[in-house]
């Protein structure tokens, strides 16, 4: 696995201490990561108060699940961001239908390969990054933004002036190629 950046190594060390019940380490982890996680949640939910509620839930989860974090498998910020993104998506889906503005961004799960299809927990970050690096750069960037950073297709399409359909097809094709590359390597 690539050596972690100094920031990632510190966050990993904090999470290990959180797993032991170290409240000071948890506070430090919160201070270092809450702005970014709030951004991820806010982009999905848009409504500020609801996003703050979800942020609290996410850190409760992080406190409880810190022992499951494995620095060999993921960077600490990716691990935390995934929890935040999933919790925000759950909250978005729980809203009454009429109020949901951007759920079309999550249709990919219904009409294409599941994002982690073919990826077992044994896949490590390095092979994931290598598979991403083999894609057309714009396709890999779209996958990183939509899957690892919690940016919705709607937001990315607006930011980059690229149609949502184009982004989805880049992501879908990129994931299929990645799955092929990763499964091929498992033999």
């Amino acid at each position: 696995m690539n050596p972690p950046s100094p920031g990632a190594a510190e966050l990993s060390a904090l999470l290990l201490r959180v797993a032991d019940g170290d409240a000071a380490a948890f506070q430090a982890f919160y201070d270092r990561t809450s702005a970014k996680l709030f951004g991820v949640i806010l982009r999905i939910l848009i409504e500020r108060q609801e996003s703050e509620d979800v942020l609290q839930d996410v850190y409760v989860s992080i406190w409880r699940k810190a022992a499951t974090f494995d620095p060999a498998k993921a960077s600490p910020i990716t691990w935390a961001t995934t929890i935040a993104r999933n919790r925000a998506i759950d909250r978005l889906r729980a809203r009454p239908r009429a109020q949901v503005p951007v759920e079309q961004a999550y249709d990919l799960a219904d009409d294409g390969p599941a994002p982690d299809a073919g990826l077992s927990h044994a896949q490590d970050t390095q092979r994931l990054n290598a598979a991403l690096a083999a894609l057309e750069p714009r396709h890999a960037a779209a996958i990183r933004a939509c899957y690892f950073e919690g940016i919705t297709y709607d937001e990315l399409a607006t930011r980059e002036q690229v149609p949502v359909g184009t982004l989805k097809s880049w992501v879908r094709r990129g994931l299929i190629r990645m799955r092929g590359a990763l499964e091929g390597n498992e033999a």
Partner: protein
Amino acid sequence: MTSAPTPRIELAGVTKRFGSRQVLAGIDLAVAPGESLVIIGGSGTGKSVMLKCILGLIPIDAGSIRVDGQEVAGLKGAALDAHRTRIGMLFQGGALFDSLPVWRNISFALPGSAAERKAAAIDNLARVGLGPEVADLKPAELSGGMQKRVALARAIAARPPIIFFDEPTAGLDPITAAVINNLIRTLVTDLKITALTITHDMASVRHIADRVAMLHGGKIIWQGPLASLDGCDNAHVRQFITGSAEGPIQMPGARA
């Protein structure tokens, strides 16, 4: 007298509520083609929400949003995509792709071969005052001001007729802010862009605006040409532009 041309952007009676907060309470606003309109108003007054409503990122509760005479509120799918590709944006947080070099960021939406896209990116870098040596750098290697200029190059790359700027000088030192203000004014004029800017930086207002509008209490309470801003007798506007703590605008939680 000839009739006025169709506004590039026109909002009529636009309302939006979040929970118990009526963020937009009936917005009436028109931006002429090629005009630079700057919206001012306190933090949290709904200026960003208004831009997101025009972009179709947030659905409105009532009212009409027209671009070049066509209703865009409630658009979906390909029609929404087509509407959005006509609007570039420079929002806070810039948000470039960390994993891509500057030239791939700038040319993300452009067609053509990699060589053609890189050439176009270098042209747009020149337009924002940056040299070709920046093209292969990653965003993390750039200062905040340079990242903002790269984001501006990206916003103009596809030559959209409309660009939205949300706090374009936020977080920049006064000199870098002046460079950005200058670039925005020059590009908007040279490329004949219709610009809608949100800012609370009065230096930006004075540099960028043809017209100014103030958003307060969910409505546009004053609008006029830049030249009439300083002589305006609206108490809310005066308090805002002078940065005074005294006046009709109350911070939330203040006692009456």
